[in-house]
C-alpha cells in the first residue's frame, strides 16, 4: 500500500514516544559539550518522522537516547508508559531487544552469516518474530537470502538490515542515515522498503538524515538545531519514495 493512499495519522493514535526537557551533556576531561538542550518531543504509533539537521545538531544523540543506547543527563524519556530514563543497562537491553528495530548507515551486518542467518540472529532472541524468509520477502530479497554480505550490493545489504530490524515485529524502527552510504537510486529502494514496512507493520519510524529531499515521504518533519527542536512540520501530502531523488 503506498503512503499516498494511506489514511493520515489519526489524532487519537497511541503515543509511543514522549520526551520532556531532554538534556544531554558530554564531558571529556575539562571539556563539556551540550548535545541536547531541553528537547520536548512526541511520536504516535505508526507515525513516520524524518529528523533533519546539520552535523552536531543533536539528532543522532536524540535517536540514541530514545533507542536505549545512551542515557540522558536530565529530563524524561517515555516509551509508551515506561520511563526509559529510569532503566538500568539490562532493562535498556531488553527494551531494544523486544521493541526497537535499528537500521544503521553502514548496515552493521555480521559478515560471516548469510542474509537469512543475519535475520535469524535476531529472530532467535525475539518473543514473537516473523520467519526470516518472510522478513526478507517484505524487502524483496527472497532470491538473495543465502548470500553473504560480501556478495550483496550496498542497497541489498541495507535491505537485509531492514529485514533484520523488522523481523522481530518492533513497535519502533529507528534509522540513522539509512541512505547515507548509498547512491540516489539505491537509496530510493531502501526508502521504499522503509515506507512499506511502516505501512504494513504500523511501526513508529524515525529516520535521521542530512538529506532534505527525504522529508517528503514523512508524516512529520522535525528540524534539530544546536541541541533543540527548531521547528516541526506536518506534511500535508506525502510523496511516495519513488517520487523523490537527490
Amino acid at each position, binding site marked *: 500500500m503506498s503512503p499516498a493512499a494511506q489514511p493520515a495519522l489519526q489524532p487519537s493514535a497511541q503515543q509511543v514516544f514522549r520526551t520532556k526537557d531532554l538534556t544531554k551533556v558530554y564531558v571529556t576531561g575539562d571539556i563539556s559539550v551540550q548535545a541536547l538542550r531541553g528537547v520536548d518531543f512526541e511520536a504516535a504509533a505508526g507515525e513516520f518522522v524524518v529528523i533533519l539537521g546539520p552535523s552536531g545538531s543533536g539528532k*543522532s544523540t536524540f535517536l*540514541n537516547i530514545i533507542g536505549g*543506547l*545512551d542515557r540522558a543527563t536530565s529530563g524524561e524519556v517515555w516509551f509508551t508508559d515506561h520511563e526509559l530514563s529510569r532503566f538500568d*543497562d*539490562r532493562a535498556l*537491553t*531488553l527494551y*531494544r*531487544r*523486544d521493541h*526497537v528495530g*535499528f537500521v*544503521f*548507515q*553502514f548496515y*552493521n551486518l*555480521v*559478515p*560471516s*552469516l*548469510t542474509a537469512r*542467518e*543475519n535475520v*535469524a*540472529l*535476531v529472530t*532467535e*532472541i525475539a518473543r514473537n518474530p516473523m520467519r526470516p524468509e518472510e522478513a526478507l520477502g517484505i524487502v524483496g530479497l527472497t532470491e538473495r537470502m*543465502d548470500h*553473504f*554480505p*560480501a556478495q550483496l550490493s550496498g542497497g541489498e545489504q541495507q535491505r537485509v538490515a531492514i529485514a*533484520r530490524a523488522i523481523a522481530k515485529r518492533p513497535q519502533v524502527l529507528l534509522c*540513522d542515515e539509512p541512505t547515507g*552510504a548509498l547512491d540516489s537510486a539505491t537509496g530510493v529502494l531502501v526508502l521504499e522498503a522503509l515506507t512499506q514496512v511502516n505501512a504494513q507493520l504500523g511501526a513508529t519510524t524515525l529516520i535521521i538524515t542530512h538529506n532534505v529531499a527525504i522529508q517528503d515521504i514523512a508524516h512529520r518533519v522535525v528540524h534539530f538545531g544546536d541541541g533543540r527542536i527548531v521547528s516541526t512540520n506536518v506534511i500535508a501530502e506525502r510523496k511516495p519514495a519513488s517520487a523523490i531523488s537527490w
Partner: protein
Amino acid sequence: MSALHRKLLRDLVRLWPQALAIALVMAAGAATLVLGVGAYQSLSETRAAYYERNRFADIFANLTRAPKVFEDEIARIPGVAAVETRIAKIALLDLPDTAEPASAMFVSIPDFHEQRLNLLHLRSGRLPLPGDEHEVVVSEPFAKAHHFGIGAKFQAILNGRKRTLRVVGTGLSPEFIYTLGPGVLMPDDRRFGVVWMGEKALAAAYDLTGAFSSVTLNLTRGASEAAVIERLDGLLTRYGGLGAYGRRDQTSHAFLDAELKQLQAMSRILPPIFLLVAAFLVNMTLSRLIMLEREQIGLLKALGYRSTTVGLHYLEFALAIACVGIAIGLATGTWLGFGLTRLYAEFYRFPFLVFRINTAIYVVAAGITLAAAAVGALKAVRDVVKLPPAVAMSPPAPVIYRRLLPEALYAVLKIPQSLIMVARHLLRWPLRSLSSVFGIALAVSVLVGSLWVFGATEFMIEVTYNRSERQDATISFVHEWPVSALFDAIALPGVMTAEPYRAVPVRIRYGPVERRITITGKPPDTDLSRVLGPGLMPVRLPETGIALSDALAKILGARVGDIVEVELLERNRRTVRLPVTGIIEGYLGLSAYMSLPAVNRLMREGPLISGVHLLYDTDRQDALFRRLKATPVASFIGLQRASLRKFRETLAENLLFMITVYVSLGVIIAFGVVYNFARISLSEQGRELASLRVLGFHKGEVSAILLSELAVLTLLAQPLGWAIGYGFAWAMVQGFNSELYRVPLVVERSVYGWATVIVLMSALVSALVVRRRIDRLDLIEVLKTRE
C-alpha cells in the same frame, strides 16, 4: 627520536597487555635456557674442579685381601698413573642419639704419607694421629645430622668387636658426593655416613695388617679404561677380586651424572617450546596490527618512506617485545640458576661452588629469542614491504566466508546463529586457529610432561615397598652365616617373621656383553621380599636356573631358555653356564635371582645366608633396635620404613618448588596464547559484537560468542596436549633410564586431569580479562564507523 620510533613506543604502550603476554612467553624460554645450561655448567664445572683438586679415581675395585706390596704390580699396569690401596668396610654403629641402628663406610687413610687419590677434604678439625685406634674423621653431613662436634664419641662394631671412636675432624670426599647405603633409594645422613680412620688402626681391626681390601686407580691421558680393568681383574682374581669398575658404575658419580643429564634435557626441550609459541604469537599479533594500520602504511609510503623502512618499523615492534622478554628471562634465569646451583651444592655435598654463568649463554639466549621474534614477524613484515601504497590506502577486500554444510542441514540441526559465527570465524583462518590449538596443546604437554613423574614415583614406591620388598628391616651380615642364623633373627625382640637371603657377586655374560652384578638367592616360597613377574605380580622363583631382571635381560639380549655364563667372584671362583628360567620386573639396578637352595648348590658351600629380612612389631621397635645395634655379625641394617620416610621427605621438600615452576610455565603459555587470540578475535569482531549489543543481545550473550571460540580451541587442544605430553614423558624415561634405576612410564589419569584443569583455568582467566573489554564496547561509536 624519529616519528616512527615515537609511534613504536606508543604502540607498545597501547598494546602493553598483549606485548607483555608475548614477552613473558619469550622470557620463559630464555629463563629455562639460562637456568638449565647455567645450572648444568655450574654443577659440571664444580664437579670437574672437585674431582681434579681432590684427585677422584677413575677405577675402583674391592677384593677379599691382598698384600700391600702387590700395589707395585698394579702400578705397573700400562695406563695406570696412580694407585691407592686401602681398606674399605661397612660397619654397624651405635649412636647415642639415634634409636635406629646406623652404619658407615669405614675408609682407611695412610698414616705416614698423604693420600694419593680420593683426597679427603677436611672441613674442620684434623686427621687422626698415626696408629691411633680411636680417632676418626666423619663425613660432614653425618656429623651435622648427629650434632657431632670435635671430640664427640660414638661406638662402632668393627669386625665383630665394639669400639669407641672419637671425632677429631669432619670432611668430604669426591667419592661420596652422593652417599647411599646399600640397597636404599635416598641418602639418609642420620643412618649412613663415611668414617675415615688411620690405616694401621683399621687394618688391625679387620685383621688386614699389611694388606688391603680396596684399590683405586687413576689413568694416564688416553689410557683405555676397559683394558686396565681387564688387567686389574686378572691380577685381583686370586685375591678375591669382586670385579673392577669405572666412574660410570661408581654410585656417587652415577647419580650425579643422571642429574646432570636431566638438566641438560630440560635446557634442550623447554626453551624451543616457548620460543616456538612466542614466534607464533608475534606472527598473529603483528599480522592483525598491520591489518589495522593498512591505511597508515599506505600513507607512509605515499609520503615517501621506503618500503623497507616501514617494514623495519614493524620488525622493530617484534624485536622490542623480544628485548623485554630477554631482560625478564635472563634476570629470572640467573636468579633461579643461583638458587638451583646452591640447592644442588647442599644436596650433593660439594665443598665449594663454582657458579659462573658463561657470558656466551646470555648471548645465545638473547640471540635465539630475537631470532624467534624475527621469524615470527617475517611474513607480516614481508607483506608490509610488498603492499603497494594505493592498495594499502583503499579499504581491504571484504573477508569471504563460506558455508560448509548444506542449507537444509542447518534447518534440521537448528544450530544457533551465534555458534555458526564462532565456527565460521575459526575456520576462516584455519592456520591461525590450528596454531592456537597447538600452542595451547603445548601448555598442556608441558604440564603433563613435568607432573607425571610424581605419580610415577608413587607407583615405583608402591611396587617396591608394597609388592616387592615388604619387609620392615634387612640385616646384612659381615660375611655369610649358616642358615641357623635365621632362627637367631626370629628370636630377636618383636620379630614376627624372618626370611633368609644369599647375595653372591658374579660377572654374568651373554655373547659379547657382560656385567658385574649380584645374584640374590631367596627361598622359593618367599613372602616378605618377593620377586615380581609380568604384570608386576609376585612369582615363585624357579627351582633351577637363573631369573634375570628385565633390565639386565635387555642389556644382555637374553631371553628365557638362553644359556648365560656366570663367573663366580667369591671364594669358589669358577665359571658356570646357567639357563635363564625367568624374567623379573623391577626398577632398581641390574639383578638376577635364584632359589636359595640353587644358589647354595652353585656355591658348593652348604646352606649359607648373607642376611635376613624381618617383619617386626613396631611396639617393640626400641628393644629390637637396641639388640640390633649390638649385633656383631651385621654390617648394615636397612630399615624400609625409615628409608621410605626419608625418600618421601626429600621428595616433598622439592615438590612444592618444582610444581610451582612447572605450573607457572604452563600457565604462561596458556595465558599468552588464549589472551592474544582473544584480543585479536575481539579486534576483528568487535564491530559485530557491538552491533549485537545494539540489537538487544545481553553482555553475557555477546561475550559467549567470543568465549565459545576460546572454549573450542582450548578443548580441542586437550587431547593433542595429552598426546604430546605423553611423548615428552616417554622421552624423559629414555633419558632417565640407566643401569642404576629406571622410572616406569606411568602417566596417571589425574595428571591429564590436572594439566587440563590448570590450562582451562588459565584460559578462563585470560578470557575474563578480555570479556571486560567486550562489556565496555562503545555501542554508539560502532554505528558510525565502516568496518
